[in-house]
């Protein structure tokens, strides 16, 4: 069935509207902070939030069934002075013209930023304070460790959507008021007051939308019924918890809008929405008040909304997070604590909505488990066929165990959701700081091979534990690498804990705290450790390059088949000897299901895990291990010299997180999955990322689609946390023609045969490329 004309029109309107930088909320924040400078920070922030909800210009589009935004315009770039706006000083004039993620600007806004905001906030932002405290050490280790969230609110959290729906705003208000009435310490009274101020603000926001809808319902004849419904929903939600499906979806969206207004943060995610909304859907269905078709339209209106909030980043950041991803991750499917399958009609309707709209948000994540239905797996595959890698696939069988091991209860682990990209988290009970830092272990290996000196600059970056010219055995090298890893982990945690501390001091978030267990019960803000679970996530970058390099060292250098001194000389000079380069490049690599190679990984996963276990963060939580990079394998690779696996200096590291190095997996997708399955997933509770590429044809024929579903079932059995699928397009095939060495693994299906693209003759390649245009 085609998309309804309502959805089509709303989508077109949204995408054709120009994106602007917006300072409306910044003005309110700026004014409130000055006016209430004597109040405690948490109260000041709550007032600024509530003031924004009362004053920000709002609008409703004709035909919208779900309303609300954080700015008047859609997809606006919000200037948020408290965190990091210093980059605007240099970049604001070029903002409309920059290559990646441009935003239009209005002259009066630019003037306001330059003349009012920047002079006042420049030294008061989170970023500048953190920079003052740890700037020197942070930049000294920047090629090894990337400390995140220095200039942005934390986000990376899933609120308790279920409770938000069950209690509604009035119910939450009551809960906070009751706690306040029995509290005597000033700090906690302020905390509860700040929650009450915030929730009152949200209530007011609902009323403002209700009033606007009421006005429009009188003036806009054609859409009168829609506006009446919007009015009814919003007025109801200002007074009570949602009852209908439509009200519940509206409430979920308003939660997201308000959390964004409070934090302006990436990766505030939605959890298992097909589960939370199901009781409302079922009850409406029983009463005969809804059909699947109506529910689908409501879901599509909501999905459109998820694309109206974007994240404005600095030019540098935008290079690596291109397309202003905001990280509205939404989970469908999976099982419950008892192991019962939880797929429902909404799981399928959400897949359908994604297929209809084909937009980047929500970041739809499907939970698979040993009981997943063939129908569900097939529906996921059919949406994947459209490209864009949505939905990404997660595996209950490995994830629940890993989360339990990291300290979550059986129930909370079973109810896990996904934060932002691929990070694993409890829903509504965990501040996981999942993107706290990236740890470039390939760079640590470089320093360990080269007496602590950077291969690119010659600067000394770590203690001298030895070099490839001095180690007498592989074990000696291993020990040195371990010492060096420990050295940098200590520095990384020192830096991260400082960043965490400054978030606590500068950015209390009372509204978010009201929807995260157990902040209200404890009377502690979520940034101070009020949540039930309080971890921080550290990512290892990149396991493929590490073990491919170690395999060469173990099997060639320390067996005297290759001189260590010579290899060191070669990586220092970026492999002038092409013969030696060929030798190391052609050696067995991770990603080909070779147990002797793949098994190298776990020693290091275990070692880093055990090192992280020695520390606690400032909220009393653990450090969780992750193996994903999203796209930072490119910038991180820039700071790494030539590596023993034959990667040249400055080139990208392996992509994703646990993907094999580009072009080194030669045995097809099953071998990649087998290699990836050898990791100790039980120790990796912060998430992993595996990218796989397929040609569109795999998804076009029923028979091969069934094979693909078989692959997904095997993925579940293999106990790998995550996989996502790229469908190869024409551009990629052209790139493969130009640089065949990087595309050795590209499988292509043509005219009933599957083949490696780069092995085909030029003429045939051309023919396939021409035909691919038709397939896509």
């Amino acid at each position, binding site marked *: 069935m085609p998309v309804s004309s309502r959805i089509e029109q709303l989508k077109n309107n949204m995408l054709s509207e120009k994106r602007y930088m917006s300072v409306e909320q910044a003005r309110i924040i700026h004014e409130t902070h000055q006016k209430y400078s004597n109040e405690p920070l948490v109260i000041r922030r709550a007032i600024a939030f509530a003031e924004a909800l009362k004053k920000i210009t709002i609008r409703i589009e004709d035909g919208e069934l779900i309303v609300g935004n954080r700015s008047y315009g859609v997809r606006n770039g919000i200037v948020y002075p408290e965190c990091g706006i210093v980059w605007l000083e240099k970049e604001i004039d070029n903002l409309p013209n920059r290559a990646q993620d441009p935003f239009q600007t209005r002259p009066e806004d630019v003037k306001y930023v330059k003349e009012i905001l920047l002079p006042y906030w420049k030294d008061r932002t989170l970023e500048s304070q953190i920079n003052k405290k740890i700037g020197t050490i942070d930049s000294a280790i920047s090629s090894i460790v990337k400390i995140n969230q220095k200039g942005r609110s934390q986000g990376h959290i899933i609120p308790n959507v279920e409770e938000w729906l069950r209690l509604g705003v009035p119910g939450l208000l009551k809960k906070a008021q009751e706690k306040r009435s029995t509290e005597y310490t000033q700090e906690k009274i302020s905390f509860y007051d700040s929650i009450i101020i915030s929730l009152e603000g949200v209530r007011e926001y609902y009323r403002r939308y209700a009033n606007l809808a009421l006005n429009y319902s009188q003036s806009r004849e054609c859409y009168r019924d829609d506006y009446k419904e919007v009015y009814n929903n919003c007025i109801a939600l200002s007074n009570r918890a949602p009852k209908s499906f439509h009200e519940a979806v509206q409430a979920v969206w308003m939660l997201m809008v308000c959390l964004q207004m409070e934090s302006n943060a990436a990766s505030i995610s939605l959890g298992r929405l097909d589960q939370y909304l199901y009781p409302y859907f079922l009850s409406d269905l029983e009463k005969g008040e809804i059909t699947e078709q109506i529910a689908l339209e409501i879901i599509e209106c909501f999905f459109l909304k998820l694309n109206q909030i974007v994240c404005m980043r600095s030019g540098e950041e935008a290079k690596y997070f291109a397309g202003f991803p905001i990280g509205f991750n939404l989970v469908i499917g999976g099982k419950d604590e008892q192991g019962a399958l939880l797929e429902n009609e909404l799981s399928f309707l959400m897949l359908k909505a994604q297929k209809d709209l084909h937009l980047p948000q929500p970041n739809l994540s499907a939970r698979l488990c040993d009981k997943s239905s063939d129908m569900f797996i097939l529906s996921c595959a059919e949406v994947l066929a459209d490209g864009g890698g949505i939905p990404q696939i997660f595996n209950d069988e490995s994830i629940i165990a890993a989360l339990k091991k990291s300290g979550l209860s059986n129930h909370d682990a079973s109810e896990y959701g996904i934060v932002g990209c691929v990070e694993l988290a409890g829903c509504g009970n965990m501040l996981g700081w999942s993107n706290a830092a990236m740890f470039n272990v390939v760079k640590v290996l470089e320093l360990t091979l080269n007496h602590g000196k950077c291969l690119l600059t010659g600067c000394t970056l770590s203690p001298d534990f030895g070099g490839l010219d001095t180690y007498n055995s592989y074990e000696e090298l291993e020990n040195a690498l371990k010492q060096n890893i420990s050295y940098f982990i200590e520095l990384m945690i020192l830096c991260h804990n400082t960043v965490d501390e400054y978030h606590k001091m500068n950015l209390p978030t009372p509204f978010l705290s009201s929807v995260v267990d157990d902040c209200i019960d404890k009377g502690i803000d979520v940034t101070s450790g009020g949540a039930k679970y309080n971890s921080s996530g550290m990512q290892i970058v990149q396991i493929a390059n590490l073990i491919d390099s170690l395999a060469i060292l173990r099997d060639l250098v320390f067996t005297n088949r290759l001189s260590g001194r010579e290899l060191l000389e070669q990586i220092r000079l970026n492999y002038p000897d092409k013969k030696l380069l060929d030798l190391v490049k052609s050696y067995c690599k991770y990603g080909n*299901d070779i147990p002797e190679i793949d098994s190298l990984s776990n020693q290091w996963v275990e070692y880093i895990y055990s090192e992280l276990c020695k520390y606690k963060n400032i909220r009393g939580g653990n450090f969780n291990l992750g193996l994903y990079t999203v796209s930072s394998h490119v910038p991180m690779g820039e700071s790494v010299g030539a590596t023993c696996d034959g990667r040249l200096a400055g080139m990208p590291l392996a992509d994703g997180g646990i993907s094999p190095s580009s072009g080194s997996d030669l045995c*097809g997708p099953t*071998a990649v999955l087998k290699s990836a399955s050898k990791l100790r997933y039980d120790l990796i509770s912060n998430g992993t990322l595996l990218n796989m590429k397929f040609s569109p044809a*795999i998804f076009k024929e029923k*028979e091969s689609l069934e094979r693909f579903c*078989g692959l997904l079932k095997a993925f579940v059995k293999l106990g790998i946390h995550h996989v996502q699928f790229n469908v190869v397009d024409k551009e990629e095939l052209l790139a493969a023609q130009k640089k065949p060495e990087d595309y050795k693994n590209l499988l292509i299906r043509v*005219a*009933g045969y599957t083949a490696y693209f780069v092995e085909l003759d030029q003429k045939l390649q051309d*023919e396939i490329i021409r035909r691919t245009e038709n397939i896509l």
Partner: protein
Amino acid sequence: MPNNTGIILNIQKFCIHDGPGIRTTVFFKGCPLRCKWCSNPESRWQRKHIMYDLVRCQHCGACVCACPREAISFSKDGLVRINEERCSGCGICAQECSEKHGSALSIHGDYMTTDKLMRELIKDKVFYESSGGGVTFSGGEVLTQVNFACQLAHLLHEEEISVACETTGFASTYDFQKLLNFSDIILFDVKHYDDKKHFDGTGVHLDKIYSNLKLALASPKKVVVRVPVIPFFNYSKEDAKCFGALFESLNIREVNLLPFHQFGQGKYEKLTRDYTYRDIPSLQKEDLEDYKNIISKKVEKVRIGG
């Protein structure tokens, strides 16, 4: 060659068009047929084989000097020529070439024991189980190494892995019966209905193939007939009609039509061999629709592609 050793051209994982589910295909080396359109000419000889890449060749002559059997020479136009009669497939020339001179020579085929093969084939067991797949023996022609294949199939069955055989059916009844016994599925290639034309295109007669096909059809095993549809050989409407009549008379239920493709052309160049089908365009799925419809009148299940 010891009994538990065979010569294998290649092992390809994640094959999704050679029988049901996700499969690993083992390409046995050696084939008695000489099909003019063959896309795997390097699989014909039942021994290791050297392939030559003209583009990479530096015409240095190192291979000529290295060959212990004097099997390599230069032709008048300066190209490397390998004397098939003399070449033992030892690979010394390829080693010499790879190290210094552009890797123009490469060696194809590897002697493998059943144990070594099993270690590789068992790796994807979880995928076979999840998709209803298994292992497919292809080639070359698996019948040329039927005793070895039989041992391998036995080991696979011990691991509860199903075995499909893609075969030309060209062998003695005695050998074919062995294959029939260990196969769970037979993908039986039928290239022509007319003996003269069959001989012309493949170099062998139809009689053995026919009697083995009948043997297979009479067995309880699942048989899928596969027809490579080849221009200037069996691609006319008349051909489709005759195939239809033949399949009907044999009571064949399932036929796959494999459109002619050009994956082999580059290989002929590397083998320095002439190729009858040089530059003849591949057939597309669309090109076979009419052909398929004609056969569909006589056969229950006809599809284009494996």
